């Protein structure tokens, strides 16, 4: 009897702690996602339809003389730009994460704070800053002119969009890799050297495999926002490179909520599959 009394007391406390959050999470995380599916699968009168989903795969438009699948083109463009940006972020970010993690403790915290500052600046402002830099009459061309180099036209190209993505999401690549590397036991590296690895060997055979979880989450944290962004392409691509995020936003603005939901649903499913694959890759690598 006393046992149930104490158990009752504990579960009462637990009830008061967990119930508000469980309710909140159900109502505002789970249910809204169900609404995405619901809207995606209904028409304006809330009748069941798959038209929104098929429209994504079949809608066509003409570019010059050729007919193309509008949304598939948009999707693969988004994917391509996001993957390129992610690769650049990784190539630039991995060395810096490594350098910071090997630095003295004090330097580490200063450098990490420095890297976090731009991250906390609003991404609209960050993106906008690049617009002023890259404009045809912007600072970059001003500088180039002083060096008697011809003006370059960057704004409105895919390159500009990639620069924007890389700049906006670069810290998200560095931080997770750094935090894994900073926790690496130095004795492991010493052991590897002791067992005959040279500097590169230590990096390839010890540090990289162990930092893989950080790399995976870094890739996730750059890929997901780049693939779904809708502001960068508008500002730096001059709206010429419509991305999947722009498509969703455009449909929202046009009040086509059902089609917006359909695109969102497809994007979500694709991202989930991607992440699951990445995770599986990571697991299989770390299992070796």
């Amino acid at each position, binding site marked *: 009897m*006393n*046992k149930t009394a*104490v158990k009752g007391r504990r579960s009462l406390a637990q009830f008061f702690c967990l119930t508000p959050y469980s309710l909140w999470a159900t109502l505002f995380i789970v249910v809204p996602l169900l609404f995405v599916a619901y809207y995606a699968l209904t028409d304006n009168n809330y009748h069941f339809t798959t038209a929104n989903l098929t429209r994504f795969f079949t809608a066509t438009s003409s570019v010059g003389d050729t007919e193309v699948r509008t949304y598939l083109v948009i999707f693969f463009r988004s994917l391509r730009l996001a993957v390129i940006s992610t690769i650049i972020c990784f190539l630039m970010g991995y060395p810096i994460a490594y350098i910071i993690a090997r630095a003295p403790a004090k330097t580490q915290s200063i450098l990490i704070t420095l890297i976090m500052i731009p991250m906390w600046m609003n991404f609209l402002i960050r993106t906008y800053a690049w617009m002023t830099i890259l404009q045809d009459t912007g600072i970059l061309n001003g500088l180039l002119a002083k060096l008697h180099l011809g003006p370059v036209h960057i704004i409105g190209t895919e390159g500009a969009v990639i620069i924007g993505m890389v700049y906006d999401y670069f810290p998200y690549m560095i931080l997770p890799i750094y935090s894994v590397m900073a926790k690496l036991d130095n004795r492991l590296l010493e052991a590897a050297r002791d067992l005959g690895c040279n500097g590169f060997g230590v990096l390839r055979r010890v540090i990289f495999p162990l930092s893989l979880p950080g790399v995976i989450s870094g890739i996730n944290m750059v890929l997901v926002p780049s693939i779904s962004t809708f502001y960068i392409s508008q500002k730096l691509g001059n709206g010429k490179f419509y991305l999947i995020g722009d498509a969703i936003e455009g449909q929202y603005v046009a009040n086509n909520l059902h089609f917006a939901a359909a695109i969102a649903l497809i994007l979500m499913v694709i991202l989930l599959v991607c992440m699951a694959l990445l995770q599986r890759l990571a697991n299989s690598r770390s299992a070796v």
Partner: protein
Amino acid sequence: MKKIIELKNISKSFDGEKVLDNICLDIYDNEFITLLGPSGCGKTTTLRIIGGFETPDTGDVFFMGDRINDLPAHKRNVNTVFQRYALFPHLNVYENIAFPLREKKEKRDVIDQKVREVLDLVALKGFEKRSVTSLSGGQQQRVAIARAIINRPKVLLLDEPLAALDLKLRKDMQQELKNLQKATGITFIFVTHDQEEALSMSDTVVVMSEGRIQQIGTPVDIYNEPQNAFVADFIGESNILDGLMLADRLVAFSGQKFPCLDSGFDKREPVDVVIRPEDVDIVPEDKGMLKGVVTSVTFLGVHYEIIVDIDGFKWMIQTTDFVDVDEHIGIYLEPDAIHVMKKSEYSGLYGDYSSFSNEFDELELPPEDWKEDESAE
């Protein structure tokens, strides 16, 4: 003596695994009692049940005659010194010790006086303002004790309080705890896996294994009159042999008959025979009651510890006389060197030293009586 705590038929399971099996234990006023056993034997759970942090599945806990199963920890007149001290890192030494008094809303001058008194008692005068995280292990230990006794509880529970200290400090603290117990008259319930600690400090030792009490007694009783093979093996070193009780005061083992002091067994009852290594006398081979070959000798300072093969059974013998490996010796046993025990579930598990020393490699199976706690020390 007055009974202060009574555990009646206590059983407790965690996730379907029985950790306490029908524990019955009386604890008396002003007693230093130790729960001794290997890790996982249920000693800490017993302590937590007394402290009010666990409730028994079945059975009752009485405190001075009152059933306290339902009484939460904060209402019990029992305090605890936790294993890693559990000092509040956000409070300084003074505030940690004053914590229980502040909970009782004592007046400031009362608090001040009591804290100073108890600081004096644990020899930490002048440490009031220090942060507890800046203290050494021994000092933290004293703060934890001071905090637990400031309310003058009837009973103090100590959960392996010395485990984190180094050997020298541990020896000093053992003596101090003993003195503190005498000075305060508080009943101490002490949990440890260290048999030396238990023997040297306690009035009463409770040996536990696998959730059951194996033996309750004074340290001398526990050492000299172990009730089964587990206790004999866990407390000190023992050679445990299969024997046959031929008559009162006559037992047979290793193919010989030996006079002993034990009686009251059935005729021809199989028994376990315990012989402590220090009770064996080494004699020339031809004068021995049993004969064997020395297989290893280890010098331990006060004595040598030698392993002797007698008809395939490895004996441990402690002696101050040097013998050499491969020497053939005889042994002689006084009647009071032989202790006869009833057979138990632990019979045959312990007592042979073939898994000991340099013959370890010859074994096919890992030794079953490998005791992590002791080998770590």
